[in-house]
């Protein structure tokens, strides 16, 4: 993918957020930067999409939130995967692999 950051595909945001939290708890900006890093700058999550998604996932019970201190001693809200979140991540990953494989197959058809 050349050029600037691409808008997120529908349904991929949840997967990316869950995946970003696999390495440990992060605050909102951390999640955002981690996704950028993981996707080598392809995806850039705007706060207007990030926060609603985080709150929705918290309500679903996939992640839990806790206030803590940031690296610069600033109060920040940290998110962490729950057990349900890990299960969700596995399910979403499987789904995504299946879809991407299917799409790839489709595109390779002569």
């Amino acid at each position, binding site marked *: 993918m050349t050029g600037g950051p691409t808008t997120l595909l529908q349904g991929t945001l949840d997967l990316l957020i869950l995946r970003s939290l696999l390495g440990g708890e992060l*605050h*909102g*900006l951390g999640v955002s930067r981690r996704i950028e890093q993981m996707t080598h700058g392809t995806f850039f999550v*705007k*706060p*207007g*999409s990030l*926060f*609603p*998604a985080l*709150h*929705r996932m*918290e*309500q*679903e*019970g996939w992640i839990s939130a806790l206030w803590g201190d*940031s690296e*610069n001693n*600033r*109060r*920040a*809200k940290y998110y962490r995967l729950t057990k*349900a979140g890990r299960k969700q991540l596995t399910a979403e990953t499987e789904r995504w692999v299946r879809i991407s494989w299917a799409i790839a197959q489709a595109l390779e058809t002569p």
Partner: protein
Amino acid sequence: MPFFVKGRSFLRNFFMSRRVEADLDKEVHSHLEMLAEENVRAGMPRNEARRVAQIELGGVAQVKEQVREQRIGHWLQSAISDCRFAFRRLRKSPGFTVVAVLTMALGIGINTAMFCVIENIVLRPLPYHNPASVVMLWSSVPKKDIQRNWTSYPDIQDWRSESRAFTQVAAVFRVDTATIVSRTGEVEHIKAEHVSSELFSILGVAPQLGRSWSASEEDKRTPVAVISHAFWQTQFGDSPDVIGKLIEVDKQPVVIVGVMPAGFNFPAADTMIWLPVTLIPQWQAYLTARQADAFAAVAQLKPNVTPKQAQDEMRGISSRLKDRYPQFEAGKSVNVVPLAIEFVGPNVRASLWMLFASVLFVLVIACTNVAGLILSRHRSHEKEYAIRLALGAGRARLMGQHLVENLLLSLFAALPGFGLAAALIPVVRSYGPADIRGLSDIRLDPVVLLFCALLSVFTGFICGFIPAWFNVRRDPHGAMKANSRTMAGSLAQRRLGGFLIVLQLALAMVLITGAGSMARSFLRLHNVDLGYQPQGLLFLHLDVPARRGSEPVELYREALARIHSLPAVKNAGAIDALFSGYVPDDVVEVAGRPHLPTAEDSDAASSHVASDGYFETAGIPLLQGRSFGATDGPHSQPVAIINRSMAETFWPGQNPVGKQFRYGVPGEPPSAWQTVIGIVGNTLPNGRESRAFSQFFLPQSQVPSAASMDVIVREERGTVPLADSIRATILSLDPNIPRFNVTTVETKLEELGNRRALETWLLGLFSAISLLLAAIGVYGLISYSVTERTSEIAIRMALGAARFDILKLVLGQVLVLAGIGLFLGLGGALVLSHIASRFLFGVASTDGPTLALTTFLLLAVALVSGAIPARRAMKVEPVTILSSV
């Protein structure tokens, strides 16, 4: 456990919203700070770092709103906050709120009341087991357009044995009253139904106490009776040992075997007692005579048999009977009427639906008014909406807020609306026409309440939707940039205002035209000549029980003489039935002509018994010959007075005076020969809408058996009320005369034409309301338009327009809109005219004068309503307006 987690989040969002909000605020701000720090670390100056961070975040408020929309229970919270907001806004403009609520309440109230009537009378099934399967069987004479005639008991037995469409057939007898001796020893008339045993099982209602009688019991010769719940209460004080008690009915002892439950109302709510017709001795002769037409039948259709199929079968049976008994059955057929239609006929149904349609019109006009109010109110809030749109409020959310506000308004209106309906129902109950069955028992029930609620929501939705839709479609840039000089109102909004005026006037036009034609036909009807003078004529129905040693005729003669001698009485007379309610059923044989016609022939006449002074008292002119006199005694030659119609039918081109005729029912020996002594003018025996038919009158002195008479008394003009002295006079002669009422003939006539009067008054009332609403509506919308165009008007004046031109401008607009509205209304009235014509008497539904008058009236109302704002427009001072910007 996702459900548990979601539930907890919902409760948290809902009950700890302040903490949730604070949390969100802190989170977004800390995010912003961290972004800024990142930028500082990247080497930006502090201020620039903050600015770039803000841009990346995209606005704290917007982000927070987006998060809120994701919350579980968000819709509930936003609905609640919308309600609070709407409530505050309505409270801030009490004038608007009160007017809108009252207008809607008026519409909702009369619609709910009207629906209550329809629901109770038309929609609710009859309180019987399977009411749809019950039909009434009447004899009919198609050639004479007689749909409901009585027939003989043998006929009904044949119907029963030959038909396959019915599971059971019960006979009901024509006589529907009985005299009883009450607990206090008084002789009373009550409604009594003489029926056969199948009736109770056809209707599927069992007595609450005791039993009904069985068919096998009808062979025994012990009269039994089932009494109504009301009769049980008044006469026996709810005592359970009423079963087996004896009661005197029509002078003979009857054993009470059952008490029907409350609410059993066949055929009427005031029917007090049901008697087996086969067991009443004085009517035994009726059970075998095929010429005695005194019965109808109630039957239960077999499952899957339609009334139509039953009708076809009965027609066949009737024609077979015709072959078997030509002398009795010629010309007759059978009419199968579903019980619901029998009780509430097509005319009453049509009349109720017509009134319901007209109150819906009123509701639409009321809605239009409120829509107009909302439109001009929104106009003044235009900038506010534009700002909110620009700040990122969703259009859907703004629309939602409008709707919430209007729904709130309509819910406020539902309460007084329902109150209005509740207040109207007792009025309908006591003043409604007596010929609508069950009208005196209507009540508000849950269905009506539900209707009221739904109607309110619907009203609020309609009132608010159109203006709301127009408003949120506006372009925020335009409204923001606009100031009072350029804000001339969007074309769409002006069109909407015009559309509302047109709609209101068109609907009002249709309604008022209808009411106008109705009023004209009512007036025309009132001027119909009855053939007698009903003004100042008192009326009482007397029933003198036969007693050994004294004939009723003696008592009547004495009573009439004493009443005549009362001060202030001009005249008094009596006839057996002033309002006969019958069709002519006596066949007449003219002396010298051998043929005694059958029921099929049209030359039947109706026999009456009259006292000496009857014609003079009623004001019926004697056209020829003489009236009854003292010489016409029981032993002198039998005489008769005939009416003009009879003279023309039976002695065309001859002088009937001195001629002889005799009469009778087919199959029975005819009467003695009667000599015609006089001819009187025709009268309309069943009220102003009936037709005159052949009648002859026999002197009371020669027909001594007539026990029940209608007494009429002509009073002197403007005298003291006579009713009490008449009553006292009669009771002084015989205290045992059953209770009677003294009313006036005009009251009786009103009862006959009561439904028409009600239709006319109600339509008139609805029209007046619609006219008032339309006037207010036109005033409001034109005022709004003038306010909109104030700066335009000022510019026109500054450019040299005269004040008169401004008046022309505004009134021209009114005229154009009114013209379109009235044109459409006229079209609507013409389209609906074939429906209207069935309610009219002697007036075309497209009655020219009514249409012209209505057009003129509405045009005048529109111009006057428009003239007030037009005057204001004329007074616009261009300098003030143009410099105030």
